[in-house]
């Protein structure tokens, strides 16, 4: 899997000062790099790890197994980007998978099918009324997605500015909103302010149906399903689309690393270069202008442009000399909320685990397996996080991609990805220790074992990742997978900093392209693409 990055390694011999340095070879950094390179710039991507990918990686941490050890499904990656960069030609294969299953403690379950009738029958098992409401729900969510989707690949306007560009964009937003028609405008206004729990109460009565749907409203977020605004987070995950089908999800063949490998290949093809083991220590600035970067160890690499894939806090509080920045700006950056709330287990299994709740051979097994009973259980899990503990009964999103993608484990063996909500970056009772990490792992494995007898005996190896580990390894502040909370105060023109929502910074020639910027996290690539568009626009001036 290091092939691409090795090939990239050669890029560094490319003489001459690059036009643009991209700090961080995560998916957004690579997307930005690709678009810049295709526009004819000489682009140098610098990655501090020995491998590229950031949080979209495939790692061999146990012999014969490949882990997608951070992000684990491909859903939000914009189709526009896949097509524009021709990623399939560079080796990206996305394998859609259908359905899933939510497992209840009492042995009950809610299975999910792509087949609409099958799904309705399944929901009707829990509540006839909900089965009918589901169509209404799906239709309304689709409507909200359609409203937001066009905004993903646009830089948000500054509502306080009178610049023609901003006014034009505001006008566009107004028209876009007005286009909804009166009734829908009110619905949309309400929706953005709603809590997931309240929204679901408007459709459903069955706890398990609500509990299942509410799962997506807390993933990666320091909110509970009852926090206003969590309805949007649900939507943020709903926006996932593969080849245009809203709500569908898929595996990248070979693990999530395949996405960044394909992006790297695309970058090579357009003449960009990537250099691994090149940790950027500081971004050089002189009288308000970016001049290049200094690597740990002192090597200076000058460049006209610096594009940071790091989150906003890391970029401006660690890599840039605060003296170069307006005081107010620095204060805002400090206030930007990046909260670690998710953990991850990557487990190598000796065989396919058995879930008695799921009928043998059911396609559900190949989809997301959720562990949750009700919205209350999720809310209580959140309460634990607020108190600085990991959830005693966490929400789990389990996937076993090896059922569909045999390349990730030896024959007959399986790789299981377990996403865990909630897990704090800093514990109330002092910093993380190996013992605490282990007991966090036990909490998770126990709650899986509750649903899968004999599960423990299948475990060959387990990688347990707390937010602290993710921060250390990937460099995401507090291990927050979105590079910043997706709350009102940090969305659209507020993301990451009011007045700096257009990928630029107070320092000329220094841009942000990570998930800290609009439209936020998930392996989407939109921030990278938008940043590149902004940069190229500025260069034309």
């Amino acid at each position, binding site marked *: 899997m290091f092939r691409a990055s090795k090939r990239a390694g050669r890029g560094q011999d490319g003489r001459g000062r690059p036009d643009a340095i991209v700090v961080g070879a995560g998916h957004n950094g690579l997307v930005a790099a690709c678009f810049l390179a295709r526009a004819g710039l000489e682009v140098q991507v610098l990655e501090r790890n020995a491998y590229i990918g950031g949080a979209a990686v495939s790692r061999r941490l146990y012999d014969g197994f490949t882990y997608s050890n951070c992000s684990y499904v491909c859903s939000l990656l914009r189709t526009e980007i896949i097509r524009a960069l021709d990623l399939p030609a560079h080796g990206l294969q996305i394998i859609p998978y259908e359905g899933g299953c939510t497992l209840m403690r009492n042995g009950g379950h809610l299975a999910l099918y792509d087949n609409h009738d099958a799904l309705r029958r399944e929901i009707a098992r829990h509540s006839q009324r909900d089965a009918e409401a589901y169509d209404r729900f799906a239709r309304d969510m689709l409507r909200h997605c359609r409203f937001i989707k066009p905004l993903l690949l646009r830089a948000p306007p500054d509502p306080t500015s009178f610049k023609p560009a901003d006014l034009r964009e505001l006008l566009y937003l107004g028209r876009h909103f007005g286009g909804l028609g*009166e009734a829908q405008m009110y619905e949309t206004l*309400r*929706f953005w302010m*709603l809590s997931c729990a309240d929204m679901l109460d408007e459709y459903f009565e069955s706890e398990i149906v609500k509990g299942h749907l509410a799962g997506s409203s807390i993933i990666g977020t320091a909110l509970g399903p*009852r*926090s*206003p605004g969590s309805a949007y987070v649900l939507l943020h995950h709903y926006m996932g689309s593969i080849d245009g089908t809203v709500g569908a999800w898929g595996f990248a063949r070979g693990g999530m690393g395949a996405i960044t490998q394909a992006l790297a290949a695309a970058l090579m093809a357009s003449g960009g270069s990537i250099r691994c083991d090149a940790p950027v220590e500081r971004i050089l600035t002189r009288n308000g202008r970016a001049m290049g970067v200094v690597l740990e160890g002192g090597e200076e690499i000058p460049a006209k442009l610096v594009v940071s894939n790091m989150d906003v806090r890391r970029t401006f509080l660690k890599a840039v000399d605060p003296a170069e920045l307006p005081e107010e700006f620095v204060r805002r950056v400090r*206030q930007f909320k990046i909260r670690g709330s998710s953990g991850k287990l990557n487990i190598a299994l000796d065989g396919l685990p058995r879930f008695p709740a799921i009928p043998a051979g059911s396609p559900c097994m190949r989809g997301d397996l959720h562990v949750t009973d009700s919205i209350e259980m999720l809310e209580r899990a959140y309460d634990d996080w607020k108190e600085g503990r990991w959830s005693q009964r966490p929400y789990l999103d389990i996937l076993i991609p090896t059922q569909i993608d045999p390349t990730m484990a030896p024959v007959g063996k399986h790789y299981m990805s377990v996403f865990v909500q909630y897990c704090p970056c800093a514990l109330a009772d002092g910093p993380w220790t190996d013992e605490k990490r282990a007991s966090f792992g036990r909490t998770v494995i126990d709650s899986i074992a509750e649903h899968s007898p004999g599960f423990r005996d299948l475990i060959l190896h387990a990688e347990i990742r707390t937010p602290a580990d993710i921060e250390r390894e990937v460099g995401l502040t507090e291990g927050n997978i979105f590079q910043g909370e997706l709350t009102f105060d940090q969305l659209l023109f507020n993301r990451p900093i009011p007045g700096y929502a257009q990928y630029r910074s107070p320092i000329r020639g220094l841009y942000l392209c990570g998930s800290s910027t609009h439209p936020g996290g998930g392996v989407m690539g939109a921030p990278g693409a938008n940043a590149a568009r902004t940069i190229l626009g500025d260069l034309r001036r």
Partner: protein
Amino acid sequence: MSGSRYDCIVIGAGHNGLTCAAYLARSGRRVLVLEAAEQAGGAAGTREFAPGFRASSCAHLLHLMPGWLLEELRLARHGLKMAAERMPTIALSGTTALRIPMDRDPAVQNLAATDAQAFREYTARMRRLAAALRPLLETVPPRLGSRAWRDRLTLLGLGAKLRLLGRADLRELLRIAGMCVHDLLDEHFESPLLKGALAFDAVLGTNLGPRSPGSVFTLLYRLAAGGEAAASLAQPDGGLGALTEALAQAAASAGAELRFSAAVARVIVTDDSAAGVVLESGERLEAGCVVSSADPRTTFLRLLGAEHLDAGFVRRVAHLRTMGMTAKLHLALERMPQFTALADAAPEGRLVLAPSLAAVERAFNDAKYGKFSAAPLLEVLVPTTVDPGLAPPGRHVLSAVVQYAPYRIAGGWEGQREQFLDTILQTLEAHAPGLRDSVRAAELLTPQDIETQFRISGGNWHHVELALDQFFMVRPLAGAAQYRAPVRGLFLCGAGCHPGGGVMGVAGRNAARQILAQAA
């Protein structure tokens, strides 16, 4: 308008109903106000809860009703006097007391220099933002996408007002409007007690905790609602009942007719428009239009009836979040309570018992799962310090707003009311040793009691929970946000309408404007 004796029938003689009636009567409408109870007031009344002891029945402070409204209705002339104005807020925790005066530039005692300075700046900015939001509260919500010049002008006007804030403040407003108060306060202050007290104001009467996004909005709402008056917490002489008495006077003197013990059973609809009401006694009263200050759910589903509305609308009404989270406590006391933190001085102000952000959040946690807060938060008033008339000589009254007390409680309130009362008394005793055995009589109103006694379904003093998704153009719900019901001739004027509850009266006045505009 019509052949009947009345142009308008107003259902309910609460402060909004009376305000609406007063404005309608002043402009020559023949108005009849129907009240189920024996006297005016609704949730803004004064009641004798124990022989010789009186207290404001629900709301016990006047701070949201705009000065201009008091002026326009000449309430002073109609007998409204204040026993105390510009009352300070005093945050108590154990032996420490933070006195937060209602000044333009408040100097808080016992506060670290950094916090004291931060609080000055914070207050100044919040006041500026609140001032920019005030016009929003006082306007009739415009309709979106409507071609009517009035709606468009309103929107433009509001936009312009916000622009006038200037870039820095506008950015801050857009940032914090949807934020949670926990984060906002952490950005500014160190003192747990100060943060606790400010967070308390944000969540009071809502279904939110400090970490719930939108709780900054409820705080701004509180500041914006009264404007400069909001800064001044006031206690009417004779309790809040004195206010509604004055309002009733104002309405009557303008020619409105008031009838008590006249509960409305339903609204008469003839050829698709409201034509009057039928009382529970069976008496029919006809009028050109009907204005309900009852909450939207009661108005639409009980008084009007779903059969007159379309299914989607009825579903929305059914889904309105209307559950109260706040209880009201009245204590008849042998003697003046002695609060440790006040060095036994008489409490001349509004005491807030909310020690820290964490304490407020934990109190909310209980409520989320249908339990009353194990450590409840209190807004305590000893009205008799400034208004001795409320109790027999030498005796005192303690009035407290208690958060959180969920309307729907696991196991039901019966039997748990006593436990909750005991919990509250423990909290009070901890701050004022000896208070407990000076209690001669106690009355605790849970949201369910408020529902039954004041006919507010859900027992929420905002009728419809105050939250961003139930505000302005979507309050109480789209299709009825302009005080007009989908049925011709039926209007809403209660707290469930924009701008919402609290003893403000603006909803009543806005509704009157709409009705008059309609007729014109």
